[in-house]
């Protein structure tokens, strides 16, 4: 089994993984970071979205072994020193979540979106950029509002 070492949420971690171990399974089962979720098996729902080297990716479609040396940020790594990230705050304030299952992926995607597209996001941009995230509860209305509000505060 190949050994893999990476940085997750600022901490150096390592472990033995099978070649076929997905990053999401490494995070959930070996590191116990269960905030990253699996909602589909065709790489479409986006519930598993994390940042690798600052960019949003679907951790269900990445092999853990290929992340050697990478910096991975999961939903658990967004808050700093007990203070929520502005995007997390915005989701709460604007009721951008209901069952909470897609939420970590939505928030990580939103952070990436702001990193690429800036703090002033039109509704059209947000909706287009959410192409890879499926929510069944909210009808997206409040997710869009949350992301726009969170972006302006980042």
């Amino acid at each position, binding site marked *: 089994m190949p050994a893999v070492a990476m940085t997750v949420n600022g901490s150096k971690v390592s472990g033995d993984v099978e070649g076929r171990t997905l990053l999401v399974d490494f995070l959930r089962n070996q590191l116990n970071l269960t905030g990253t979720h699996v909602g589909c098996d065709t790489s479409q729902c986006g519930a598993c979205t994390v940042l690798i080297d600052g960019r949003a990716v679907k951790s269900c479609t990445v092999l853990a072994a290929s992340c050697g040396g990478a910096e991975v940020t999961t939903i658990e790594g967004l808050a700093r020193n007990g203070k929520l990230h502005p995007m997390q705050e915005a989701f709460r304030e604007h009721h951008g979540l*209901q069952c909470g299952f897609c939420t970590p992926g939505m928030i990580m995607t939103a952070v990436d979106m702001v990193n690429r597209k800036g703090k002033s996001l039109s509704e059209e941009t947000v909706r287009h950029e959410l192409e890879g995230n*499926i929510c069944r509860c*909210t*009808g997206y209305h409040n997710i869009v509002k949350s992301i726009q509000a969170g972006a302006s505060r980042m």
Partner: protein
Amino acid sequence: MTETGIGARVARKEDQRFIMGKGRYVDDIHLPRETYAYFLRSPHAHAKIDAIDTGAAREAPGVLAVLTGEDAAADKIGGLICGWMIHSMDGSPMKAGPHPVLAQGKVRYVGDHVAVVVAETLAQAKSAAELIDVSYTELDPVVDPADAPKNQSLVHDGIERNTAFEWSLGNKDATDAEFVKAAHVTKLEIRNNRLIPNAIEPRAAIGSYDPAEEHFTLYTTSQNPHVARLVISAFVGIAPEHKLRVIAPDVGGGFGSKIFIYAEEVVCLWASKRIGGRPVRWTAERSESFLADAHGRDHVTTAELACDRNGKIVALRAHTIANMGAYLSTFASSVPTYLYATLLSGQYNIPQIFCEVDAVYTNTAPVDAYRGAGRPEATYVVERLVETAARELKLDPAEFRRRNFVTQFPHQTPVIMAYDAGDYHASLNRALELADFNGFAARKAESGRKGKLRGIGYSTYIEACGIAPSAAVGSLGCGVGLWESAEVRVNPVGTVEVLTGSHSHGQGHETTFAQLVSDRLGVPLDQVSIVHGDTDKVQFGMGTYGSRSGAVGMSAIAKALDKIEAKARKVAAHVMEAAEGDIEFRNGSFTVKGTDRKMGFGEVALAAYVAHKFPTSEIEPGLKEGAFHDPTNFTFPAGCHICELEVDPETGVVTIAKWTAVDDFGTLINPLIVEGQVHGGIAQGVGQALTEGAIYDEESGQLITGSYMDYCMPRASDLPSFTLGFVETRCPSNPLGMKGCGEAGAIAAPAAVMNALTDALGVRDLPMPATPQVVWEVAAARQAAE
């Protein structure tokens, strides 16, 4: 209204854990020495199982057990049940085919459970499952529900014509008589398309058996853990209820699909015992969810509306073939009957209604309640008929509706329901205003200049929620009562825990229920916690579905709070040495009328627990009360949704330009949360109308839409932001005046979309989902005709 009380837009308490990634869903839970289950599923829609050879699988690395239907039978594991008895018109009881947890002798749909492998790892279980050798003799599958009664092939041996029941509601002769003399009859053939619920958290279960205590624990994705325990105990026979604990922790959406008792949860419990007590876990892959979660809708209906010469509706009749799938799921029989035909009066005064329903078996996944359950199907029938009739009668669709609205309450419909309160004119008028109906003609002209077709459509819907009075549903065949329970525990320092039989899987109960407590007891919101989802902690309860948690669940809490207040008054009176009648309770303080004597709620709670200041022979120590609430009537949320959309006739792409919803849910506890419920419901309704549809291959019975590659879930870019408004008529049948809001959007939306789309295209009807291809074909045909 206080900042956190009833009516306040409070941000949700439960969000903290979800936004931090600290939610605790079933698949997040790990137990020591756990093992993995993988289900071998039928690749055939309909086949006889000639033999199953599990020898090689048993020998595979890591395998602990391979179990089949024969093993289940040997261990006397019972089958799954349908809990609502429907009688056919001839008086005979419905014919429920056996529903074993692992197939016995026959498989009946693609995805049916054939065997389970339990192994040390999931990969080992999967690989071993490939070694199971099943010999099948394929049988002709029954796929088309309309054809099922005539099909020579029988899904269940001995259930003739593949028919579970032939049921009716209403007066046939009186209805037919109205049709004979009607000035105008509108007729539509309607297919209410089959949907796959797709909560984003896939179903999951962990079964764990403790041999020392002979006790089972089940972690499961359930909307109603007590009902799951009851069924798994009393019918499946895994263990008596006191030896089975069911925990439904955070659950990632349900929409009905997690009400039901499924084979996988039963098998995980049973398998844990078979392997000596090591926990057995299973989490569905999404492709398994597509195959084996209960689906929704799937009605084939002929519907007719009769009007007199003044544009008044005189009668409605419908004949529906309801697809039940291969087995009768937990509440499947109630959906196309008492949750459907009873709503065929819509918001209208319709003197005669008659509805016949044939429930048929097919070789497809079981069909049961999905958000709205029966009521979206009824609303679609009524609102498409009404819209079409108005166009045929050359009446403005709003005016036609107004002419026929129920205006006097209570109103007894010909189909059981007694509407208690509402103002349908108010919601229609407000919606027209918010939708800027007056500007529509100009917007349509502007679209036309760009080569686009614009349309507008209404859906003035009604639903029956807050299910339901136990005696009423009992008389209609329901196997359980549909009350709800609550226990309010005040701690000695005055903080409060509420144990509720409702279950939150996205609805925000931890906030709204706490708002009620805060409002009533004057306790800050952060000093109230809501406990649910664990049969060892919470008294028996009936769970969450049918928009019932507010109207029924919160009513139970309100009753318990009444008892808390009554007892606290007694305690306060003793401590302050006053007559009980002189105690006033306001904003969390007990005062003695006309004096400055005063005690905070926390002080009274402490006094109740130390019990120094009152005779415990008269007042028991402590401050904890329980209540069961059984509603006296259904509730009747209603409203008006208006969809305005634009069609690109070149490509068939439909863009929703504007969505307006004005709903009457009675009292709103937290408008922020209520709005979220409406948004989500609309999205699912738009999905039904434009994008979603489960398709089985007619020949083979294979599910073609078996993943997100082919089943089209609405994305953010498919939807607009929504404009919402509310009117409020209090519900008279519960103490808070609430009606329920969880399903409204999904009920209202499909008809609004299709009324708008037929308006835009200038056609009478088109099928759901109206995908770009469907719309393009219609638009092209229209263009060719011009």
